[in-house]
């Protein structure tokens, strides 16, 4: 009985460690795609601004919108990280 209890304790600690591991790997994976995406968005916005400086204001607004939409995925990954790590 006591052995079983100790086993459960060890297993419980392992589960905690595994969830921490999963949280780290999961957040890292969730950051890859949005990182590439934001790079594309900002890079193309800079190209557009350099070609036509007179529409820079409009391009900047649209760029922030694009960043906001792209970033949402990374932030959901961050929330999952918080949930896995701290609960």
């Amino acid at each position: 009985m006591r052995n079983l209890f100790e086993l459960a304790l060890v297993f419980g600690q392992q589960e905690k460690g595994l969830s921490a591991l999963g949280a780290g790997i999961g957040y890292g994976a969730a950051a890859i795609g949005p990182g590439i995406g934001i790079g594309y968005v900002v890079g193309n916005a800079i190209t557009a601004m350099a070609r036509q400086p007179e529409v820079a204001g409009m391009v900047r607004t649209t760029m922030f919108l694009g960043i906001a939409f792209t970033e949402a995925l990374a932030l959901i990954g961050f929330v999952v990280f918080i949930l896995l790590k701290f609960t």
Partner: protein
Amino acid sequence: MILSALEFPPIEELLEWKDMFGIPGFNKIALLCVVSALIVATFFLLAGRRGQLVPRGIQNIAESTVEFVENSIIMQTMGTDGLSWLPFFLTMFTFLLVANLFEIIPFIQFPATARMAIPLPLALVVYIAFIVTGVKRQGAGKYLKTTLFPPGVPWGFYFLLTPIEFISTFIMRPFSLAVRLFANMLAGHLLLVTFALLTAALFTKSVLAVILPLPFAMLMAVTVFELLVAVLQAFIFTILAAVYIGESMKPQH
């Protein structure tokens, strides 16, 4: 030895706050929320008390804030049609700005928007606002039709497109709007906490460790970065609300 000083404070500090003034449920976040609403109200009441033709002082700041919201949020997304929404977006933007800026103000150092309780009701208000606007402007049937069945697509695609449009418009929109603000501010706060704890640990454990200026420099840099993030997130929340409401005013598809 140093490693033990680098422990995070228990996460309960972040998730559960002590009640203040003996009122159950009224914690620091609620206080910050009330204070930022009061700051915004006082600011605009003071600015509008004596309208002068040539604005000076506080009236000048208020007028440039109004012009900023008008020119770079409403005119960029909704056009002249949305100018009647100016008070709504102005209040939302200034409230979020003040609530976000609490993140880097000394001795407060917690953004009121880093708890889901503040962004979520705001996002739900936007959600109700854009649905009601769409129904009022276009009628319920036509609104649903233009949202779920965008024209100009071969009919076979609707099997794929309609569920995606439904989920992204009616389920993901308020969720992502709230989570974007919440997670950005919470991530910034955790970053600041991490570098502040590193700096404090190095400072208290050994005098020599202060020569390593990296955590302190990072703390400074992150503080400046969080100033940018606070302003940007208030702007993004407001402009996304404007995009959503403007989209249901006149369908772009």
